[in-house]
């Protein structure tokens, strides 16, 4: 039991450090890191207080390691779902930018044409 606690604990500490470091180097926005930090923390807490997980294991009728995997899996599921919503927003914004770009491009060409007509009249 202790061995597994140490392994799981170190993994979660490692995840927390990597996520923290990525935020510090501005490679990961806080917005997208919250779920990672939360999952790292929860798993760290579980490894320190194994009784917590024992309660959950008993309720679910599973072994210690299995319930740990189930919890990690649920967090990963949440993170992936979060990413999907972010992706949808990004593609929507991308579409809008593209549309604006084409309209601006049209206006620019229009102005350019008028400008050259004016210059042509003067000369």
């Amino acid at each position: 039991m202790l061995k597994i606690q140490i392994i799981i604990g170190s993994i979660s500490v490692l995840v927390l450090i990597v996520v923290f470091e990525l935020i510090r180097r501005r490679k990961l926005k806080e917005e997208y890191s919250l779920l990672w930090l939360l999952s790292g923390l929860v798993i760290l807490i579980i490894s320190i207080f194994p009784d917590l997980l024992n309660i959950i294991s008993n309720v679910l009728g599973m072994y210690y390691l299995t319930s740990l995997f189930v919890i990690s899996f649920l967090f990963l599921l949440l993170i992936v779902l979060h990413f999907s919503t972010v992706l949808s927003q990004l593609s929507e914004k991308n579409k809008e930018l593209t549309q604006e770009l084409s309209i601006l491009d049209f206006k620019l060409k229009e102005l350019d044409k008028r400008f050259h007509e004016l210059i042509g009249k003067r000369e």
Partner: protein
Amino acid sequence: MNLAKKILIIIPAYNEANAVGKVINKTWQILPFADILVVNDGSIDATSEISRQEGAMVLDLPYNLGIGGAMQTGYKFAYRRGYDLAVQCDGDGQHHPSQIKSLIDTLINDNVDVVIGSRYLGTRKFRSSIARRAGMFVFSKVISLIVRQRLTDTTSGFRAVNRPVIESFSHYYPCDYPEPEAIVLLHREGFSIKEIAVSMSSRKNGDSSITISKSVYYMLKVLIAIFIDLCKEIPYRKS
């Protein structure tokens, strides 16, 4: 025909260099007072150049957005430039510019918000495969039930709309299967729809040779999209 109205013909075109020039030209002949906008949806051929040569306004999208995104670009343009009416017409020559007039006349005289040109309404016959017709039949039944009105051609992209609809579309326009989805959306937003009979040419490129399994698959996808749409919040309401 009301000449005081500012009319925009929106032609979405993706690699239609062979057909779009003719469409623009014919439209000019019939509606010399209308403005023509070609939305070039990231074509890699001469669609943009040819459209410009024919005197149309052209919006060039830097990559292929798909028909929904391209159409919405046209509606955004129409909304900002103060157009009273917009007509969407395919760039592949499938829709006949000569019938744009009847779309516009119906829109004004019957005081409706949207007029759709239908291939299947009335006595005009449109040749297409059995699979396609079966699919269309199911669509029109389901959508007619939802909008509580008989509609025969829900995938027709030959439509005329008034200013409030232009505004609505510029805010939100469905992207996946825009034609049938837009009908359901318009109904939920409180707009009135009317169909009139038009004739259409079958597509010249062999695109429409849909097999039965493909058409069933397409039908299911669209039906699911429509039912999901029904669960979404209404993005805009007719004022």
